[in-house]
């Protein structure tokens, strides 16, 4: 077991980033033209990094499996982006955003990184507005804000329920500007198959052209992985169908440590599973918890009647409803952090109060918000003594203006009108806080290999706060990585172009081919999805919202056996040398089958509950997470040693100099 150096600059917290920027080496503009950088993934982090690096003068090649950078899954983020602008004058500051994020992450993130994130957050908003991102505004023309879980201020900027889309299109437009200038070469419908190391440094990738099936070699002086999270290891998640861990896992196998894989966010407000045919889950933005109240029936017989379709939720009177978040957490109410809200929903459903046919759903009710807004609107419109129908109508209009697209999406999927009857929601896998271990410069343990956005582990600890993923993706991409990478590249100004005919590229390409051939040679019994669904079930049942030693040990055994079965019996039609979606899926699932085991191993070793990681053995009498700072106040970074079971643990001790470690309380 080794100790990891996070390379955090010395000095006071608030000065670290400025000091670091002053201290690091720069590459002069003429030399930047001789340096190539590969960026894999074109979401918020990758797209923003590619645009900024190209603008600085580097030659950038981007890779994405989608047919356009604009389709990266950042696009699906709904609710908003945090920034400590304090436009509302409600006492927000960089420090408060920093504090909320550390506390929200249950004290498992790095102080210096999180402070830097808070520090650059305001710049993100300035930047995006300059790029033409149409954020929501008030009538006076100023930017509007709303509130998200785990905080007591309104610091979330938004563009209706499509904030991720608008921010991604902003980054995409910045990329397009550089593509037009010839500074970015975009390789769409390409998948990174492996990382190539030369003399221990990341010097390129092997990519597969997904249209022709061709294997290509691409070299560079540094490689940036901005390939998102690995939530699809659960099969069902809010991630896109193609979201995968391949790039990160390939890097892990080449020496990049994988940090805190068990820190996964289960988002409390998703549309519940409807049947076995389900291919993915749909999120209902956390912003809905600003106005929606979460409840289940107080009486078990009512819950049963609802499940059987004999009782409608609107028929249950106020006294017979259990607004369990408001009951358990009066200070934060429906806006507790995601991990807390998810566990509370599971607790009620496990106790038999769940409300849809599967018994795994709770209500998210807008009736009181509709009434409140309706009364306010009637008042401001000069209506005296409006009747109930008018109030409801006015209130529904306000709610539609705020969340219209989400309500429409819900109605299309569930076939119920959420204005008239409460939504049904249940937690689902949404985001992964774990990822490639990076230092303060966002460099992995492989020199020249960087990780940004959700792909790295650094900023959210054991639980991410709402509207912080967009903030981190853009902060890493626009404002952090383009500068820190220069320090590394300053040593490469005399290197010249990296040749792709070296033995290292030769060997990497050979291995990629052999792996695909091996996949194709399976005996042909079960489809790729069969294995993916099986893996997902193990993960959800044994590594999901609540974990225990016994089941984690079972999960490790089961996943290992499933992996063996997969490699022997998977069935993939078609050929390697042409477009083949089954082969694409197979490569991704093969890596999930390794990651899943490491995930369980990590969860098993962490004998505490913190954030999204809840071990049943470690809880308070009230069922709250019981952290163990004495023994687990560290980042667990795993080194690849062959099979996942042999992975070696390295620790990075988390030092809190500016924040006092406390038990998280939202009561």
């Amino acid at each position, binding site marked *: 077991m080794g100790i990891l150096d996070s390379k955090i600059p010395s000095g006071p917290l608030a000065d670290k980033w400025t000091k670091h920027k002053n201290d690091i080496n720069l590459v002069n503009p003429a030399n930047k033209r001789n340096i190539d950088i590969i960026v894999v993934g074109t979401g918020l982090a990758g797209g923003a990094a590619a645009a900024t690096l190209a603008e600085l003068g580097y030659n950038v090649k981007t890779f994405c499996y989608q047919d356009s950078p604009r389709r990266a899954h950042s696009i699906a983020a709904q609710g908003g982006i945090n920034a400590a602008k304090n436009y509302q004058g409600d006492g927000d500051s960089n420090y408060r955003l920093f504090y909320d994020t550390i506390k929200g992450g249950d004290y498992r993130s790095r102080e210096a990184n999180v402070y830097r994130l808070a520090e650059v957050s305001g710049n993100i908003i300035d930047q995006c507005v300059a790029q033409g991102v149409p954020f929501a505004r008030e009538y006076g023309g100023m930017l509007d804000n709303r509130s998200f879980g785990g905080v007591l201020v309104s610091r979330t900027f938004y563009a209706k329920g499509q904030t991720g889309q608008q921010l991604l299109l902003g980054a995409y437009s910045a990329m397009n500007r550089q593509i037009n200038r010839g500074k970015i070469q975009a390789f769409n419908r390409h998948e990174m198959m492996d990382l190539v190391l030369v003399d221990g440094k990341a010097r390129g990738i092997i990519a597969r052209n997904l249209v022709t099936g061709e294997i290509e070699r691409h070299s560079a002086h540094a490689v940036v992985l901005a390939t998102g999270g690995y939530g699809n290891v659960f099969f069902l998640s809010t991630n896109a169908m193609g979201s995968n861990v391949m790039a990160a896992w390939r890097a892990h196998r080449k020496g990049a440590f994988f940090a805190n894989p068990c820190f996964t966010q289960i988002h409390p407000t998703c549309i519940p599973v409807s*049947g076995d045919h389900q291919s*993915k889950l749909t999120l209902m933005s956390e912003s809905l918890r600003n106005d929606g109240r979460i409840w289940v029936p107080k009486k078990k017989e009512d819950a049963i009647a609802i499940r059987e379709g004999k009782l409608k939720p609107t028929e249950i009177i106020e006294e017979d409803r259990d607004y369990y978040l408001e009951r358990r957490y009066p200070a934060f109410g429906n806006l507790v952090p995601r991990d807390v809200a998810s566990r509370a929903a599971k607790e009620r459903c496990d106790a038999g109060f769940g409300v849809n046919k599967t018994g795994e759903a709770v209500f998210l009710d807008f009736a009181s918000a509709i009434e409140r807004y309706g009364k306010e609107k009637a008042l401001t419109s000069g209506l005296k003594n409006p009747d109930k129908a008018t109030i409801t109508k006015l209130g529904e209009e306000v709610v539609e203006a705020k969340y219209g697209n989400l309500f429409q999406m819900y109605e299309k999927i569930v076939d119920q009108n959420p204005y008239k009857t409460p939504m049904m929601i249940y937690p689902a896998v949404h985001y992964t806080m774990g990822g490639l271990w990076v230092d303060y410069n966002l460099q992995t343990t492989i020199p020249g290999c960087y990780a940004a956005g959700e792909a790295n582990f650094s900023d959210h600890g054991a639980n991410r706060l709402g509207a912080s993923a967009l903030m981190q993706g853009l902060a890493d991409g626009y404002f952090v990585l383009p500068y820190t990478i220069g320090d590394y590249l300053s040593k490469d100004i005399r290197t010249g172009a990296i040749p792709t005919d070296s033995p290292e590229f030769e060997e990497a390409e050979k291995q990629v081919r052999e792996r695909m051939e091996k996949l194709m040679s399976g005996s042909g019994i079960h489809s790729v999805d069969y294995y993916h669904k099986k893996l997902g079930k193990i993960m959800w049942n044994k590594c999901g919202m609540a974990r225990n030693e016994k089941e984690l040990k079972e999960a490790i055994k089961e996943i290992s056996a499933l992996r063996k079965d997969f490699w022997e019996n998977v069935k993939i039609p078609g050929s390697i040398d042409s477009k083949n979606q089954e082969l694409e899926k197979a490569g991704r699932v093969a890596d999930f089958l390794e990651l899943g085991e490491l995930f369980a191993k990590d969860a098993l070793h962490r004998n505490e509950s913190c954030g999204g990681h809840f071990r049943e053995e470690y809880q308070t009498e009230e069922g709250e997470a019981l952290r163990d700072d004495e023994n687990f106040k560290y980042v667990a970074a795993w080194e690849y040693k062959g099979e996942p079971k042999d992975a070696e643990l390295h620790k990075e001790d988390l030092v809190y100099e500016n924040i006092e470690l406390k038990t998280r309380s939202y009561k």
Partner: protein
Amino acid sequence: MKLYLKIWRQKDASSPGKIVDYTLDGVEGDMSFLEMLDILNEELVSKGEEPVEFDHDCREGICGTCSLQINGEPHGPDRLVTTCQLHMRKFNDGDTIVIEPFRAKAFPVIKDLIVDRSSFERIQQAGGYISVNTSGNTVDANSIPINKYDADEAMDAATCIGCGACVAACKNASAMLFTSAKVSQFALLPQGRIEATERVQNMVRQMDLEGFGNCTNTGACEIECPKGISLTNIARMNREYLSATLKG
């Protein structure tokens, strides 16, 4: 329910394609259209046949990856949804469903139901941006107030997901709705006005180069658009284009 599917199969861009018949049983109303195709593909794979390839990713109606011409309509019979959000409850037991790729000269077929929409990329690259550096050293976000009405209208235009349904719906395969949505978003914002003249000229030039047809105001694009992008944007682009031309 039981469905009779007629699906376009095409090996690659250079091979000819044809409609192939499939019968699929056990489809439920709660399934999305793509989940229905998943089941078909699972059956095909188990028989050792190549599955039907189609583009899809987020499956929540926002990434714009999914396409499909379903019974002659882009994204099928429902309004304001993409194919991934179209549910089988919109169909009946015994229905015959014809599934084809989006058809347009500027969208060549790659395989089966997958088309190449890189022509859209090149239109965006020609001018779909504001030329501001991403260093973050810009003015404070609230230093230029923007009328809420304009900001909301810019947002409505900006919600285009670039799926190409407008092109597939149009008898001329015109990309006017797509191009005008981006032109409008920026034309409505003070930050975007600065380059408005060059932007509209460059984007329209590229649109024509890609082989998209002309607009004859039939309005099919607006009806089929899963995001409800308004024809007003085309009118605005025409105005922008005219004034740009007059400026020279």
